[in-house]
């Protein structure tokens, strides 16, 4: 069953583009990645789904219910972590966490205590005394303490140290195993590649790819590294070229025979051809598009 489904969802800010005719479908129980650079429309999509902003046209359903008509019902089962954690600055972390639970009319004290323990939240401190990372931790507790059916996380790891990031993803994977659906928006592709089953790529407000992370990674493009020469052999279409003294590395998406022909007779001392990681594909994708626009 689809837990999130959008139909030609569009949001315009006056003349500015937000998102354009987005058709997205996320299944219950998935660990879903939402990829795009800053300004691509990730947050706009999420904020529309949560009812913070109203769609210009199109519609969306969460848990099979319309996001506008069943707004409150839907929010009761969602845990949301915004990209920037902002709370009432004079309240303590403890008060914020309790307020969040009360707003949900739930007693989540046991789970809140567990989460605070694991993340090392200093509950007695006022929000204004907390660093960005520590505010993020409070935000995590608020998003997860009521054990929501759907977690929507907007660039959740910025400001968290690597150890905390690991703990955070451990918690998310445990939740996911227990049946929660996770929607993770990020521009850090390794995060998506490591954790997500499926992912959508959004670019300039439009959905450009929606597939399993495995399939997204398995494209025709190869990372070719050649030693002994420092320029891309003539006749090859290469992007993301890195050349150094005595070696060159590039992404190549043409046919293999053409590559072999181009390499024949060159003074190559060593070479590797590997599957690019998601990050490279993403770059490849964007570079190609940019090139297309330039022409």
């Amino acid at each position, binding site marked *: 069953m689809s837990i999130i489904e959008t139909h030609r969802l569009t949001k315009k800010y006056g003349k500015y583009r937000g998102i354009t005719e987005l058709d997205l479908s996320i299944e219950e129980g998935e660990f879903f990645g939402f990829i795009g650079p800053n300004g691509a429309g990730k947050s706009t999509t999420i904020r529309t789904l949560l009812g913070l902003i109203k769609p210009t046209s199109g519609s969306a359903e969460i848990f099979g219910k319309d996001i506008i008509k069943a707004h409150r*019902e839907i929010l009761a089962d969602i845990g949301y972590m*915004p990209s920037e954690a902002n709370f009432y600055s004079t309240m303590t972390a403890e008060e914020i966490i309790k307020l969040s639970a*009360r707003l949900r009319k739930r007693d989540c004290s046991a789970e809140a205590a567990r989460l605070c323990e694991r993340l090392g939240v200093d509950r007695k401190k006022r929000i204004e005394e907390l660093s960005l990372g520590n505010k993020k931790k409070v935000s995590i507790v608020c998003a997860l303490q009521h054990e929501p059916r759907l977690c929507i996380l907007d660039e959740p790891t910025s400001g968290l140290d690597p150890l905390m990031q690991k703990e955070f993803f451990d918690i998310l994977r445990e939740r996911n195993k227990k049946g929660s659906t996770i929607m993770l928006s990020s521009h850090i592709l390794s995060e998506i590649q490591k954790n997500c089953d499926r992912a959508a790529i959004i670019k300039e407000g439009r959905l450009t790819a929606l597939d399993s992370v495995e399939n997204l990674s398995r494209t025709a493009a190869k990372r070719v590294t050649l030693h002994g020469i420092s320029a891309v052999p003539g006749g090859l279409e290469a992007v993301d070229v890195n050349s150094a003294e005595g070696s060159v590395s590039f992404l190549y998406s043409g046919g293999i025979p053409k590559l072999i022909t181009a390499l024949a007779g060159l003074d190559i001392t060593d070479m590797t051809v590997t599957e690019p990681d998601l990050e490279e594909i993403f770059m490849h994708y964007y570079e190609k598009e940019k090139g297309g626009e330039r022409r």
Partner: protein
Amino acid sequence: MTVYANEMKRSLKALIIWSLAIGAMIMICIAMFPDLKNETEKMGSMFANMGSFTDAFGMDKLDFGQLMGFYGIECGNVLGIGGGMFAALAGISALANEEKEHTAEFLLTHPVSRASVMIQKLTAALTQVAVLNMFTVCASLATAAAVGESFDKKQFVLIHAAFLVMQAELCCIAFGISAFIKRGSLGIGLGLALAMYFMNLLCNMSSDAEFLKYVTPYAYAEPSDIISENAVDGALMAVGCCLAAAGAVTAFIKYGKKDISA
């Protein structure tokens, strides 16, 4: 009720400070009255002969030598300006501060409807206004009793009832504006209260500006009129109540469909 309780808790400090400040000024004024009373024979005629200044503050209609007359001018201005500012600030910051401090995103992604948030926030702001006024009334009565003076009961009740409605109106209008703005709420709030206050002064001074009495709530809360008429102008107050309702309704319509900025 959670939003209401949280609003009250967060504004408690400001409420206490404003109440103490306004209460203290009123107590000082009343405490000075017995000494002033004897000198007001002369002062009274002086105050009554200061031209438009006299008109502006309604001093031609009041007797400075009587506690009610003195109270109407001195305390009326303190509670009029102070209470008006507090009410406008409470109203204007209710919605705008959430956006300014980016806490609206936190609040509105919980299962509460915007309508419920607005009702609770407006009720909290009005409660604060009521508490401030109750505190002031108690301070006045206690001080008057301490210096052995007593108020005309009816006039005292009418003045304070009119002040309460006046401040509630300012609060509701500010709340309506609050739904439209994202920052700078402090200046707009204070500006609103002061603009209304000066409109009433203008209205008292010049008959050309008399139409302003339908705009500013200070017109029906003018102690000199209430004391000399022994009544509150019901028609003006009704207009005021309509303006207050318009402010609140505007907020509901605007904030209900507003895009919350990130």
